[in-house]
């Protein structure tokens, strides 16, 4: 009995345990000085994921595939807030005098960068082996702040896959989320235009 308990405890410790919450630390958000000139832009990020919200970015599953735990960003930082910070820096790099839409910017924005997180998820498919999968879909649009006229829009999708995993450990979730987020930011950087398409 004691030996069985020991085996279970060691398995849980080594296996990372399918229960509880794993916290993922993302690298520091991008920073960029506000340019002296350029269109005034407000960054707005909405999280419209249906099955996840806030800091949660994934599920942990047991051997039968049932959801038994959660994967979240460290320090309970919401994904929308974090993506907002990176989009702020990206917009400034592109030449916009960008600020977050909340709290209200000092100068009224001319353009709103409307961002909608449709999906951002890391999950595990349980079979003979485990396949870790990730998917992010973000809709991004530029809207004239005064007339609400859409000026430009795009949909960015990135996904990832790590097959043939026998035991999922904390570093697997860390790697999957970090990689997905980095590729999402990179894709958004490529998508956001440098000038307002009017």
């Amino acid at each position, binding site marked *: 009995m004691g030996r069985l308990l020991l085996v279970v405890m060691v398995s849980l410790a080594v296996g990372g345990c399918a229960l509880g919450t794993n916290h993922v630390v993302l690298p520091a958000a991008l920073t960029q000085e506000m340019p002296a000139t350029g269109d005034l832009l407000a960054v707005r990020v909405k999280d419209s994921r249906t099955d996840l919200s806030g800091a949660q970015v994934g599920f942990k599953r047991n051997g039968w595939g049932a959801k038994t735990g959660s994967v979240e960003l460290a320090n309970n930082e919401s994904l929308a807030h974090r993506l907002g910070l990176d989009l702020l820096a990206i917009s400034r790099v592109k030449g916009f005098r960008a600020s977050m839409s909340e709290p209200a910017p000092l100068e009224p924005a001319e353009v709103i960068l409307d961002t909608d997180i449709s999906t951002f998820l890391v999950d595990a498919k349980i079979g003979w082996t485990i396949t870790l*999968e990730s*998917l992010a*879909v973000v809709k991004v649009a530029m809207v004239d702040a005064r007339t609400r006229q859409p000026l430009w829009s795009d949909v960015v999708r990135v996904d990832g896959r790590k097959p043939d995993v026998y035991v999922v450990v904390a570093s697997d979730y860390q790697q999957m989320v970090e990689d997905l987020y980095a590729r999402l930011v990179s894709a958004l950087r490529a998508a956001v235009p440098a000038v307002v398409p009017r």
Partner: protein
Amino acid sequence: MLDSYRRSARPFPRLYPGEAMRRSGRVLLLAAILAAALGGCARYYWMKAGSTAEQFDRDSRECVLEAKSTVPGPVSGLAVDVIDQRYRTCLAGRGYVREKQFDPPAAGSYRGIESEEELAASAVSKP
């Protein structure tokens, strides 16, 4: 003599110690096998009071397209799960309830999209 005959003829004869336990175990096992066998015949159906098959087909098609529009690109991997989740949320939002039923299902029950292949095929077809 008559007494012993009456004893042996009663409908529930006396059992040896442990026999009752063994018999109830066998009954339970049989019930479990039966339940598992019959359970395989149950499938998921969508139900909504007063709905018609045509209405469900239309709602189902619209929900697939709506769900698919949130995840552009190939319908594979995790995208299947996300689209499926959104499809179900959409139908639930239109008042349908998804429940397991034995075949043949009750009137007013409709079979929605339940497999990856169906989802991929439906997602590309226009309503």
